[in-house]
Structures are given as C-alpha cells and as structure tokens.
C-alpha cells in the first residue's frame, strides 16, 4: 500500500514545478557558497593547510543553507498539500484506504526523499567545486559529513512541520507566511548564543548545527552539539507521527 501511495505522490508532482524548485534549492545554496571563492586571497591559498580552505567553504555553506532552505521547504510542502485541499483529495484517498494522516506520511516519504537528496547534492557539489578550483588540502571529512547529516535532519524536520501546517490550515498563505517568518528566526538564530538558538526549533537548529566560526580573518572549527540535532530529529519524528495519527482519527 505504501509503495503504491508513494508512487502516486510522484505522479501527482507532475506540472507542479517541483523539479525547478528543488533545483533552485540546490543551485541557490551552491552559488551562495561559491561567493567564498571570491574572498581576497582564497584562490591563492587552496593548497595551504593553514589557510583551511575547506573550513572557509564550510562556513560559506553554513551561511547559504539557512538563507535558502526554509522558504523553499515551505513552498514545496505547500505545493504537495494544497492539491489535496483543492481537489478533495483527502476524501478520494480515504475511501481508497489511505487516511489523511497516512497521506501526510506518504508525502513526507516521497518529497522528503527529494529534500534529503537535494541537501546531499548541495554538500557534494560544493566539495566538487572546491576540488575544481584546486583545493588540494585534505577534506575535513568528519565536520563535513557531520554538518551535511545535521542539515538533512533539520531540513526534514522543518519540511515535516510545514506539511502539517499546510494540511491543517487550508489557506496556504498561512504556511508560506510561517516560512517567511522562519527565515527571520533562522537569521536571528545565527546571531544568538548557542543555548538560545536551541529554544527556536526547528529554525534555530541551523545555527546549532553550524560547524565553523569565523572571526577577525580566521576560521575555527567548532564542536557542534550533534546530540541536540539528534534530539530534534527524534522529537520531530514523534510529533509528526503523533499529529498524523490524530489526522487519521479526525473526521472529515
């Protein structure tokens, strides 16, 4: 049942401009990260381990991701759900054995896979471009993978939140408004002390996951609290399952 329902979700993405949106998410992040290449002296020190070129690039990535992702995730979630409100799809699916909460979970699986893939692609493309401009220093694999995994988790939690809002509130302007608000919360989070960013889930966790810090011309590797991000993922999953269960029991 799940496999068929997931396949249906991909059919339903036709003509919704999902591919361009996902592409914008990838290209936007990669392009913003590449601004790092234009920093004075960056391209001259691509083989100097002390200049830590990869860490600079990671800093660029950590700046670009929270700028681009929140709003696009809101738009993607809204696109997936709005058609159910418009086309009376909730009922159509329910009488075919897919309850509303189930439908939300299926949407999370299908579109969530694309979101995770896009996030992975962002990270991988930045590495590829780094190599292309000649960075020969060893890639700091741990921080890089750690950050990539962390933002996949944060992106998925945020996407799930937007799915729930879009499903609960038929007026999609509400979800999109929340997305815009999220951008500000995210930006505010990056300027905050770490503990207060913790209080703004899920947006604040883009800041929590930040793997490097730049100051006065230098870049230092941080030791981000991966446990916090893991907790966000677990709590997010539980809340999502709980709320979609509730949708299943709700009457139409």
């Amino acid at each position, binding site marked *: *049942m799940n496999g*068929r*329902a997931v*396949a*249906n979700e991909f*059919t*339903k993405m*036709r*003509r*919704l401009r999902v591919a361009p949106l996902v592409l914008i998410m990838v290209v936007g992040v990669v392009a913003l990260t590449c601004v790092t290449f234009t920093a004075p002296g960056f391209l001259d020190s691509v083989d100097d381990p002390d200049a830590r070129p990869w860490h600079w690039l990671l800093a660029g990535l950590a700046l670009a991701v929270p700028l681009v992702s929140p709003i696009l995730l809101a738009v993607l979630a809204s696109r997936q759900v709005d*058609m159910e409100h*418009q*086309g*009376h*799809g909730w*009922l*159509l*699916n*329910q*009488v*075919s*054995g*897919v309850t509303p909460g189930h439908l939300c979970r299926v949407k999370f699986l299908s579109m969530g896979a694309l979101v995770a893939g896009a996030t992975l692609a962002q990270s991988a493309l930045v590495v590829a471009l780094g190599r292309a401009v000649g960075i020969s220093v060893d890639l700091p694999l741990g921080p890089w993978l750690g950050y990539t995994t962390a933002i996949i988790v944060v992106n998925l939690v945020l996407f799930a939140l937007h799915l729930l809002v879009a499903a609960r509130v038929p007026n999609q302007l509400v979800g999109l408004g929340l997305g815009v608000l999220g951008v500000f919360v995210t930006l505010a989070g990056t300027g905050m002390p770490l503990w207060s960013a913790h209080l703004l889930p899920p947006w604040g966790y883009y800041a929590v996951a930040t793997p490097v810090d730049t100051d006065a011309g230098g870049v230092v590797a941080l030791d981000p609290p991966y446990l916090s991000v893991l907790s966000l993922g677990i709590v997010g999953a539980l809340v999502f399952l709980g709320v979609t269960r509730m949708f299943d029991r709700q*009457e*139409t």
Partner: protein
Amino acid sequence: MNSFGRAQHNESVSNAIITHDLGKTYGDRPIVRNLDLRVPEGCVYGFLGPNGSGKSTTMKMLLSLVRPTSGEVHIMGRRMQRSTRRSILGGIGSLIEAPPAYGHLTGHENMRLVQRLLGLDQGQVQRAVRTVRLQEHLDKRVRDYSLGMKQRLGIALALAREPRILILDEPTNGLDPAGIEEMRRLLRYLAEQGITVMVSSHLLGEIDRTAQVLGILGNGRLLFQGSREQLFSRSTPDVLIDTAEPERATTLAARWSAVREGHSVRVPGVDQAATARLVSHLVQGGVPVHGVRRQEQSLEDVFMDLTGGRGL
C-alpha cells in the same frame, strides 16, 4: 426472540445498507437522529432532504468517514467497524459533496492514481470511463473540465473498483437539465447492472422518477422510507366537491373544516369512510353534489408536507 433473529437475517440478505438507530451529534447539537435506513440491493435509493437536513453527514457515516455518536451501520451484511472498514470500503464507490480530482493532472492521470492505489486492471478503468462516456476527454487537464465532466470523472473514479454499492452525494448539483437527464440515465443503467445506487438530493424532481425507493430526511430524522406509491398513500389528498351551492355546502361541512373554492368546496384530511359520511351529510342537507374528486397531488406537495415546507 427467535423470529426477530430470523427477520434480521433476511433483512441483511436483501438489503445492501442497513443502519440501526444511527445518530450523530456535533457538540450538543443532534444532526442525525435514530436513523433506520434500509437500502434494498440493486435499486436506486433516493435520499432526499432539504439543505442541512443531514444527508451528507449520514452518507459519511455510511462510509465511516464520520464516526456515529450512536447506532450501527451494516453494509452487505457486515458491520462497519474499524477492523472491517477497509475491506468494506473496497466494495463501495462514493462521491461525497464535491467531485474529487486533481486539477493539474489529466483525467487519465487521475484514473491512474486510483488504479494504482487499488491495484485495478486496465479493463476495469476503461469500462468505468466508457460507462460515464469520458473517453474523449481523458487527455485534458481536469482544471479545464466542465462541471458535468468533473462529476462524470468523479463517478468513473468511484466505479473503477467495480463496486456493489455506489453512494453519490448530490451528483446532479450544478448540472444543466441535459446533464441531469444524462445522470438519471446513468443511475438507472448502473442499477440495471446490479449496483445498489444511493443518491442524495435536495431537489425531489431530480431523482423522483429515477429512484425506486425513497428515504426522506428532515432535521436529521427519517420522515419516510418506502416506494413512491407508499409515499402518496401516506398522506391524504384534499377532497374537492363540485356543487351548484358551494356556500351552503361549506356551512354544512364546517365541522370537516371545509373551505369554499370558487364553485367547489375543499375538504382536507378526510379518508374514504369520512368522505362517504361527508357526502351523505351534504346530500341529506339538500346540497346538489355534482362531483367528488381528490386533488391531484404532486410528489413535491407530499415532500413539502413531510419536511414542513422547508424543502425544494
């Protein structure tokens, strides 16, 4: 006790849908009360009631989309429950409140979704599409469909699973007369194929001649259930007496609440025995009675009577 059990058994064989004391309350507002529906297999069952009388709510309870506050629903002899609902729903095609379909997809793509979800074969989909005569329009996007085409696609989506029961909530809503006539023909055709069709409407005229059995809902209560003929016989049409002296006849028949109407006298609510007494009373009083007849009653009048003049 024994005979009751047997009766119930027989009932569940010949009735596709049975409800016992079905009720729904929102907050403290009862929306549907004490509903005992009997929808015989293979007929068109017209489910009538004014706006807000609870038709959609009832149909949603039949499909277990809304949980009843009280009572039971039995479909094809099986009690609708959490555990049975999935398999029961597999045998019911339905269209509730508005025709569903994704506007950005073509008719074909929409059919494909249901086909995949229910594991149907190509033949089933094609038959459903041909039954509603939509095969010419399958490659068009649904957002470019007319309302009539959307309704037909909605029915095709419901029919593809080859259901034994079809539950259609106001499928004629918004259709022009030709569209309504076509829908009627379709419903009759489906019933001929052995499908039990339960169809709701707030307009009696739309399903009056199509339905073999009528259920009339008013304020959440079942006011009548039975055939058209039974419906007529239930209410007593007015007696009209033609006479050369209507004035005197009206006075004489005052205790029957007679009213003068031109050259005749109208007497409401008298059955056959009372009519005989009334006529003999008039004749004894010397009134020249030229004719006694019953007012032709339209189904609309009966419906209005039953629903307290709120319908139609």
